[in-house]
């Protein structure tokens, strides 16, 4: 795959922003939503790869609740991007939150400590990165918000606070925020606020949903963008499969 040719997802993302690619890169909030049948993790991988391109100097702060580093490393390596090297070059900060536990549900103040320290860590990193010279965009990625809720033991207010804090970084440093969440969890009224708030903050919402006709081997689902233009279903999955066919060319 050549990087110069934008695929449909890219086109869709660019066209809703007036102006050049430069302004498009300045701080945006992207909310990715998926469901049990179709995982949208590949969108995160895709963004990760785009921001870590060798010709830019963008930085990614990745907060992983879902998978360990080795998982992402292997995937990105197949996409032509070495995370371990990027980590060494200070362009990729990986925060492994797999075992993060905000203890004691009834403990009052004790439980948000975990998220608070996590935010402190992120803020410090963002501060350091933005103080370095050169124009760079810092992207904060969260995989995924629903697990963060579980880690916070169900207090979605703490998670919302956390996300709002991250949102302030957008104003202050021009950070982008990319979050993955599962849409189908928030079907009942008392769980709605979180996803609604997220969607309110978002500049772009990307939804992955299964095709009504069932799955095919090359078309897996459809993608929906916030201005309700349903992209032709083939875009990303077609890319994946193309990628798979092209793999020998990379010569890993």
């Amino acid at each position, binding site marked *: 795959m050549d990087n110069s040719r934008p695929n449909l997802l890219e086109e869709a993302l660019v066209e809703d922003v007036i102006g050049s690619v430069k302004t498009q890169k300045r701080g945006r909030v992207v909310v990715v939503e998926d469901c*049990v049948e179709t995982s949208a993790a590949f969108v995160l991988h895709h963004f990760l790869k785009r921001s870590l391109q060798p010709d830019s100097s963008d930085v990614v702060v990745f907060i992983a609740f879902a998978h360990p580093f080795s998982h992402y490393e292997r995937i990105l390596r197949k996409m032509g991007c070495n995370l371990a090297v990027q980590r060494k070059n200070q362009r990729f900060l990986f925060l492994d939150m797999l075992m993060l536990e905000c203890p004691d549900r009834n403990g009052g103040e004790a439980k948000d400590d975990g998220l608070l320290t996590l935010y402190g860590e992120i803020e410090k990193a963002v501060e350091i990165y933005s103080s370095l010279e050169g124009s760079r965009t810092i992207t904060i990625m969260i995989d995924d918000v*629903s697990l963060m809720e579980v880690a916070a033991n169900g207090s979605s207010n703490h998670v919302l606070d956390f996300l709002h804090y991250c949102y302030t970084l957008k104003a202050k440093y021009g950070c982008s925020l990319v979050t993955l969440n599962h849409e189908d969890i928030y079907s009942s009224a008392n769980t709605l606020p979180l996803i609604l708030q997220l969607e309110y903050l978002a500049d772009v919402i990307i939804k992955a949903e299964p095709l009504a006709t069932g799955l095919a081997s090359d078309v897996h689902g459809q993608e929906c963008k916030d201005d309700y233009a349903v992209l032709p279903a083939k875009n990303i999955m077609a890319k994946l499969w193309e990628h798979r066919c092209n793999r020998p060319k990379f010569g890993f």
Partner: protein
Amino acid sequence: MASSRPRGSSFSRNISSAATSQIPGVKLGPNGTSFLSSGIPDLDQILGGGFTLGSLVMVMEDPEAPHHMLLLRNFMSQGLVHKQPLLYASPERDPRGFLGTLPSPMASKDEKPHERQKPHERPTEQDSNLRIAWQYKKYLGEQNSEVQRGGKAEYCNDFDVRKPLERHFYSGQRVDCISLRDSPNLVPVLERCSAFSSQISKSDSNITCAGRIAIQSLCSPQCDFSDKEWDMLSFIRSLKGMVRSSGAVAVISFPPSLVSPTFLKRWQHLADTLISVKAIPDEDKELAKLLTGYQDMLGLLSVHKVARMNTQVPAILEATTFSMKLRKRRALILECLNQAPVDGSSGSSYGTSSSCSGSSKTGNLDF
């Protein structure tokens, strides 16, 4: 990846030649993953090799039938046969009693000709004697598997559900049993699990030993914590984290009707591999007309999610719903649903509507 997917074509690479690692009962898979056998050869085949090491498998129970026990029993028995450490938790007062019901592995000799065929290629009695071009692969496969079976430890055994596991399999084994009823919360269970997984934890990439964790009916109402949904959720998440960092597979079965809908979705998202089992009603005449071999069916098994580790390419199965049968009333097998060739009302409103798409692709004759 491509090589590990079951294919219908006869020009696919033979999967059974996949490399086996030094650890007994562990098979190397694509993308640096390894597989543990589920104890059911057909399920292994469907999942592309078995349960991925480090994954969390969730089984959604049927509220009325104990079909999930079949899966758990085979899973645990396979572990004991491979001499892998085992942790079993259940809401029973005496979980150790369950060990007495584990099935025993069948002698492999008498069963050979039936083995190692993909579930959708299993021939019916009539055409098994038919040796024509598109069936050569089947015979080749047979020979291969025989060679493999010559080795000392098989990756996956067939289990005889009528015969209890012999005593000597338990001796010198590490089998932990916990009753979920003993404590008002899940903390002690989690502690046991973490102690268990820390003993088998892998040092960086070298797995020394694989472990199995089986938890039966996690949210059953006998347990005191069954109404604390966030606690259970964080238990599952912690367990997932633990299992991921050690060389183990955790299988949790739970009755989905007892979990509230939003939490059910959360549970499903947490699962790496998601399977549901369902009994079929005894005398459903319409269903009997629709599906061939209805009389022999025990129930239906659906695969909703397959663990994707170290890869983002989704696994797309040829069929998602399979029928569970007992071959000769002994060995559990899974078969693709075959629709009976009657009046083609394909849009039937059955719970098994996915069977239509499954069976249409996987007829016995594919030219």
